């Protein structure tokens, strides 16, 4: 920015901790056009002074040296088309967490101001985007979740389109008579709501339904998805703003459960088979057509089992209880015995469980099923480790296996790998390449034709799947989100769940979809940088088509042209800056977050000479969790080492390795990156940022070795939002390590 003003707040203990006149000197050295102090800058008087400077003196860069940038955001917002605001944190990082009126504290305050001034000199005003946005929500899947979602979207003022692959709406519930209780007192089965729901949806003019349809292609980006679908031969196209995928789940393949007798006798069936019989009102043993006297239910059939489904599907216990209750009501002479590993009835279902438990026609007991054998017309179920304390055998006419859920997801990554391998075979560049590709095609063949969304994305035609094939996300931090902006997973596709949960899930996902459409309409990013109007800039003349950005973007924002040059889709972008961190040519920037701006912060302050014995440490802190944790530590007046200079970053993935090199070459003694947890239980707000930063820092370690620098000088730390007490620990320990390493030998070069 051209004309920068510095506004220093002296309240909140700041003026006791630092000498304000020294800050003024530093500002003047940097040619600040104005230097204003106020004892409470965030109150209307303070704001008015800033506004006056903007209006009267033509200030276009406002440096506010006060509290953390996370505080008072509303107060310190000025016309974004005219003014850039830079926040220098004198309260949390200086006044509240350092010794007052100390030499090191003073140096820190001056350095932070200089860093802020350096950065504001490098950033630009953002130009908001305004695009034509469709406000329609597309719901893929017309089961309970999908229908609920479509209705919810209309209730929120958005038209909906449902695409269902079967010829009729309803999904799994079409096979059911009752559902588990949804309302107090939760002690008896509820009537299946699907019939009424289908009628409601069909009668709703705002909902367009395509049955017997599949998606041929989903092109474009959130707000502007162009969905081509085939519906009985005729191809059609709909424009939608966001997508809720509710393609549900299917029962686990029971033919793999031979140890539980499936396939051995026709009188061993799945809970799904039983459900159909209950609905039909004719409950018989398929083997001999007789009405069974006793049914044994085996819970966790193939679930929580290393060799089958490793997870708990969470609804099978409820479903079995429901079936026992339905059987008690409809066929009262049949005795039901339920064998479970653990009866899992979360929440209100516990009441239902107790109700069923006390019905004399049902017996529920814990036990491990050893094997199931055919016996006369029925079966013998052998239990070991039963509660009777001995091995027992139960004679029964019918065995029902309560099998778990497998999501109807398509593995986008695998399909893409398969397609890439096929392309390599066609290209036929070398024999070994073709051989490898052929092998890959063979191993991924089963993914062929499983596409659901058919996304026109470089990173694959469907949602990337995470743990256990569910396209889930961290359920507390980022519910309903997937790794594709504007596409949200709901229902049993999202995680194993029962009917009340699926209904709730549908509402949640629709709200996310509506949020996305409305943010897009305002030209703003969605969570977690909600409200951000900036977009990335690619200086493509210098692009080497290395494809790191297109590969590493966690949200598939970038497509590629034939040569591999990235094609940016603004509305898919979450503004995390992971591409900026990835680019070796450093051609990607955001108006307010550029490689150069951060580099200039690193270069803005003076690094003391070796003999001063004042080491300097750069800390790159993720703004999502690490920085709030740091602010909280400061609010609790926890102190940490004053040698550390903190730069907030959008994500650890948005740290370009050149900043490490810049720091080391300036003589800075150590660099620490603090961000969110990575791995299967990641808490990274951009899913892969921490993971990527870790890989990249691995490469940095090699560079350190080459330069004969200690590898301890660069470190990555994972920190959760609630671990504020660890912040000083992490920083102080690192400062100690650096002190032990001694000064950076490149100091002064």
């Amino acid at each position, binding site marked *: 920015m051209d004309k920068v003003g510095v506004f220093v707040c002296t309240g909140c203990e700041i003026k006791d901790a630092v000498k304000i006149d020294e800050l003024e000197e530093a500002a003047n050295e940097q040619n600040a056009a104005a230097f204003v102090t106020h004892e409470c800058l965030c109150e209307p008087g303070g704001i008015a002074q800033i506004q006056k400077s903007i209006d009267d003196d033509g200030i276009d860069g406002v440096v506010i040296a006060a509290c953390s940038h996370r505080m008072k955001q509303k107060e310190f917002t000025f016309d974004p088309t005219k003014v850039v605001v830079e926040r220098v944190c004198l309260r949390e990082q200086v006044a509240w967490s350092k010794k007052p009126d100390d030499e090191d504290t003073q140096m820190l305050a001056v350095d932070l101001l200089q860093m802020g001034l350096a950065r504001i000199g490098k950033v630009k005003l953002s130009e908001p985007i305004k695009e034509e946005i469709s406000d329609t929500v597309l719901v893929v899947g017309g089961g309970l979740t999908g229908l609920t979602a479509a209705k919810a979207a209309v209730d929120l003022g958005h038209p909906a389109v449902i695409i269902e692959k079967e010829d009729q709406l309803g999904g799994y519930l079409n096979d059911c008579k009752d559902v588990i209780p949804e309302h107090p007192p939760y002690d008896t089965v509820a009537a299946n709501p699907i019939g009424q729901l289908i009628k409601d949806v069909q009668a709703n003019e705002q909902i367009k339904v395509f049955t017997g349809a599949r998606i041929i292609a989903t092109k474009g980006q959130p707000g502007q998805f162009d969905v081509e679908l085939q519906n009985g031969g005729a191809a059609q196209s709909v424009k939608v703003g966001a997508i809720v995928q509710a393609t549900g789940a299917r029962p686990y393949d029971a033919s793999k459960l031979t140890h539980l007798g499936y396939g051995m006798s026709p009188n061993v069936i799945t809970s799904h088979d039983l459900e159909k019989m209950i609905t039909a009102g004719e409950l018989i043993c398929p083997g001999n057509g007789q009405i069974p006297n006793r049914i044994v239910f085996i819970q966790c059939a193939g679930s929580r089992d290393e060799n089958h489904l490793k997870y708990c599907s969470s609804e099978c216990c409820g479903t079995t209880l429901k079936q026992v209750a339905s059987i008690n009501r409809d066929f009262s002479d049949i005795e039901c015995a339920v064998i479970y590993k653990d009866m899992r009835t979360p929440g209100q279902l516990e009441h239902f469980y107790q109700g069923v438990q*006390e019905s*004399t026609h049902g*017996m529920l007991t814990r036990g491990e099923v050893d094997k199931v054998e055919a016996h006369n017309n029925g079966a*013998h179920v052998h239990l070991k480790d039963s*509660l*009777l304390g001995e091995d*027992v055998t*139960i004679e029964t006419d019918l065995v029902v296996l309560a099998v778990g859920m497998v999501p109807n997801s398509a593995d986008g990554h695998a399909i893409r790998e398969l397609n890439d391998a096929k392309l390599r075979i066609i290209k036929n560049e070398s024999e070994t390449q073709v051989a490898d590709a052929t092998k890959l095609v063979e191993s991924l063949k089963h993914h062929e034709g499983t596409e659901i969304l058919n996304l026109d994305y470089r990173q694959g035609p469907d949602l990337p799947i995470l743990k256990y094939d569910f396209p889930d996300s961290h359920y507390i931090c980022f519910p309903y989100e997937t790794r594709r902006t504007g596409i949200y997973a709901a229902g049993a596709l999202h995680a194993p769940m029962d009917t009340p949960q699926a209904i709730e899930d549908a509402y949640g996902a629709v709200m996310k979809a509506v949020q996305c459409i409305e943010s897009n309409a305002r030209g703003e990013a969605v969570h977690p940088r909600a409200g951000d109007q900036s977009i990335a800039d690619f200086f493509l003349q210098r692009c080497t088509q290395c494809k790191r950005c297109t590969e590493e973007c966690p949200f598939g924002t970038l497509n590629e042209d034939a040569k591999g040059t990235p094609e940016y889709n603004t509305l898919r972008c979450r503004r995390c800056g992971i591409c900026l961190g990835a680019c070796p040519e450093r051609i990607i920037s955001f108006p307010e977050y550029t490689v150069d701006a951060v580099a200039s912060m690193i270069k803005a302050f003076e690094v003391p000479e070796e003999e001063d014995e004042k080491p300097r440490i750069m800390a790159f802190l993720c703004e999502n969790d690490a920085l709030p944790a740091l602010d909280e530590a400061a609010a609790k007046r926890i102190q940490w080492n004053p040698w550390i200079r903190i730069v907030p970053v959008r994500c650890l993935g948005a740290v370009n390795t050149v900043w490490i090199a810049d720091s080391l070459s300036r003589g800075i003694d150590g660099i620490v990156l603090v961000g969110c947890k990575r791995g299967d239980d990641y808490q990274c707000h951009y899913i892969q940022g921490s993971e990527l930063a870790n890989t990249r820092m691995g490469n940095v370690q090699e560079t350190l070795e080459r330069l004969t620098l200690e590898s301890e000088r660069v470190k990555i730390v994972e920190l959760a939002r609630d671990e504020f007490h660890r912040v000083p620990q992490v920083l102080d320990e690192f400062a100690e390590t650096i002190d032990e390493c001694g000064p950076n030998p490149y100091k002064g070069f």
Partner: protein
Amino acid sequence: MASNVLISSTSFREALAKKGGVTAARCYQCATCSSVCELAPEGLPFPRRQMINAQWGLADKVAADPAVWLCHQCNDCTVRCPRDAKPGDVMQTIRALAVENLSTPKFLGKLVGAAGSTWPLLIGLPFVFWIAFIYAVNGFTVPEAPLAWHDFVPHWMIYAVYIPVTLWVVIAILVSGSRYWNLMGQGVTRSGSFVGNLIPAIKEILAHKRFSDCEAARPRKTGHLLFLWGFIGAAITTALIIVAMYGFKTPLPLPQTHWMKWIGNFSALLLLFGGLMLLANRMKGGQSAGASTAFDTFFLFVAFMVGLTGILTEGGRLAFPPQIAAWMYVAHLSFILCLFATFPYCKFAHMVYRTLAMVHERMTGVASR
């Protein structure tokens, strides 16, 4: 261990549920009950296992189980049960079912077992019988005061009724008791003599040692003790009078100051007070009592009425006009008949089964409390 093919019985579970043991289904076998039970011997912890047996409907296992009768329904388990499965009530229900199932003949067991609805019949029949009998013998002619009961109902009439009934009851209880004794003995080795172990067991019962270990049901101990001693006193009085009548030719009625009268009166008071305490405890409900079913209250009521009508008969003979006092005597005779006749089939039978279980416990060496 070889698997045994188990076929659980729905009918047992249904019967249990009908008699108030439906909560057995709630049990998830945490064994809190067995660990808090002060009465469970180390070698035979209960009632956890009885709960699972009941849940599975394993009627045979339940029937042969000595622990069922070793339980005194302290209800410490019910108080502590985290699942509100009420093991104390379940055990009581199992006992009620056991009395019914072991009874000889079965139909009487069923009839008394259903006292909740059959009580008018069970109490009414003895009344009808005595009225009819007296009418047939002397046309229900009440003699003038001063009243001597043998003028109204001669002794031979008493003998003609109670001797056969007592014989019958003894046979019935012997058959049922030995059936239970054999069931308990299956697959276990007993050592020592029956009588040798019966004596210490009876001593223990007379002192009510186990009741004092109970926590939740401690208020019941005194009532139960008084009640028991009242019965014993009444039995002793009866025996003494028979001996006096035939051995020493003592004329009846005895004067009010006679020492035998005093024993009788004292026993009746014990019976009344004990009975009142137990009834009050049941009416108050709550955890110390457990759920009250007809199984409990029928026996308690009849036994209490025996005591009450006894006192009324004794006092009424002198205080009331003969016409009224005679009816009190008829009521007394009828309640005694009711109590005697239902002995093997109502809660009264616990006296026999519990004693047997305690002897069995001693003979199998699990009684290492």
